[in-house]
């Protein structure tokens, strides 16, 4: 086998650099996503180091990363949690959609983007980062708080909205007409419902197929199945990512839990490559001019998320401080805003830099703001030992 020294070396250096950045981010209890983006921005043509040999691997890895991100999103999902969230938080989801998608759409219209661009930007400002927020709630020890179920419910409903939104966006972005897009959404929603019925009635069969005790077998089967479905979805122009999401939704219970366990390290690796690739596709000279717009959009949509969280927490009966914590924790945007760009980015040169800058701002500012907004005033007095790293 011919081994390319340049490829191995470049990949090794990139992964080592990402690990340093990731450790640095964790040290300050931030998400590594913005740092991965920055790493991508600083590499490539015109950056500090062009990486010609690793380029191909990064492109392939990014495609797999996108598939794994959405598979993991689907695996998180349980029909029971969805129906409970739906019962309690439909008004919160409505407030979330109107308050956060509209500023993005208006900004897109103001910037003179076409319909696909406007729709994409609306999605970018709408969807909070469920990955970063779940981690934040854990790090800040907020899982016991009264407002936390409201926050998690809003995230579940946002994730579900993606099942309708992503096919719509993908079909329109690939030049389809509105009726093709509507058909795409119908097919996707139909497939999601079918997936629910299948997993509800026959999920144990699929679960048995995937219940090999050997983790290696389990990983190969889930990954193989996902990539096949993703390829079929791509074949009918419904995007590989949507196909992977459907596979994730179909797996429930114990099978989903084990699949999550074996796939998490893989997802972390390829998702990092995906963020790197998005950073690579944007050049610094394009980023600087869109910075003012990105900052303004970030400020407006941070405020609207705070209002969303406050409203949702109010429905759980939380007090003013709890409502503020719920609002600020929702500010952060991350992986799925970038996924949206990954899906339409090729057709929109202006959108890529804008969204990269927007996510950079909010993925860094969001965790910082919620930390300040939710600092527990009594902890330092009662439990001095546990204070480190939490405030």
């Amino acid at each position: 086998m011919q081994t390319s020294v340049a490829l191995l070396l470049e990949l090794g250096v990139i992964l080592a650099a990402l690990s340093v950045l990731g450790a640095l981010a964790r040290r300050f209890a931030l998400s590594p996503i913005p740092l991965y983006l920055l790493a991508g921005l600083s590499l490539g043509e015109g950056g500090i180091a062009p990486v010609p040999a690793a380029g191909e691997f990064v492109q392939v890895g990014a495609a797999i990363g996108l598939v794994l991100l959405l598979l993991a999103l689907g695996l998180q999902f349980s029909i029971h949690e969805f129906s409970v969230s739906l019962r309690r938080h439909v008004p919160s989801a409505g407030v979330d959609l109107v308050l956060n998608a509209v500023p993005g759409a208006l900004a897109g219209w103001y910037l003179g983007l076409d319909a696909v661009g406007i729709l994409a930007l609306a999605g970018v400002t709408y969807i909070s980062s469920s990955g970063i927020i779940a981690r934040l709630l854990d790090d800040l020890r907020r899982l016991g708080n009264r407002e936390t179920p409201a926050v998690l419910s809003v995230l579940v409903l946002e994730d579900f909205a993606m099942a309708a939104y992503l096919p719509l966006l993908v079909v329109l972005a690939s030049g389809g007409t509105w009726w093709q897009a509507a058909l795409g959404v119908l097919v996707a929603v139909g497939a999601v419902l079918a997936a629910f019925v299948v997993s509800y009635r026959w999920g144990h069969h699929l679960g048995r197929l995937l219940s090999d005790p050997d983790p290696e077998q389990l990983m190969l089967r889930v990954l193989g199945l996902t990539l096949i479905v993703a390829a079929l979805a791509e074949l009918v122009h419904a995007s590989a990512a949507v196909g992977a999401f459907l596979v994730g939704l179909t797996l429930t219970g114990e099978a989903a839990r084990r699949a999550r366990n074996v796939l998490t390290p893989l997802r972390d690796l390829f998702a990092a490559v995906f963020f790197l690739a998005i950073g690579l596709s944007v050049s610094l000279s394009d980023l600087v001019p869109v910075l003012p717009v990105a900052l303004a959009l970030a400020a407006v949509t941070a405020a609207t998320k705070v209002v969303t969280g406050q409203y949702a927490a109010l429905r759980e009966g939380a007090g003013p401080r709890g409502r503020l914590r719920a609002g600020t924790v929702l500010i952060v945007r991350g992986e799925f805003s970038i996924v949206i760009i990954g899906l339409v980015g090729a057709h929109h040169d202006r959108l890529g830099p804008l969204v990269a800058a927007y996510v950079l701002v909010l993925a860094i500012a969001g965790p910082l703001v919620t930390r300040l907004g939710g600092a527990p005033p009594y902890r330092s007095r009662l439990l001095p030992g546990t204070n480190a790293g939490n405030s």
Partner: protein
Amino acid sequence: MDVNEVLLPGVGLRYEFTNQDGDRIGVVARRTGEFELVVYGSEDPDQGRSMLRLNREEADTLAEILGAPRIAERFADLTKEVPGLSAGQTGVRAGSPYVDRPLGHTRARSRTGASIVAIVRGEDVIASPTPDEVLRAGDVLVVIGTRSGIAGVEKIIRG
């Protein structure tokens, strides 16, 4: 006692209750099998102060410690409802002929009619032990049967 159950989508469940001192206590049970115990402060009743985190094994140990002393007590409550039935305990001393031998070898039930329903071993409780369970010195057997049946088991174990 009222235990309030709250779903945490994507994370697991949270149980909440109030103890007799009036402290509101929450237990976060994650899908992964880990637990977190929180107490709600009086300044901000919505915020749980995280007291401790337990992994799956630690949580099992804690549950056994809290559960063990109450087992014989609960059997005692149960036997009150059936006239003539009693619950008793008998220790396996180091000199007993059944130390390091399976429970089945005592043939306790066929000889006395009384059943050994649990073995308390240190902090562990072996509930409804099988005949293959090997007895150790220091075990405490929880026995259910008539008074004479329980006395018979004691005699067999003492040897």
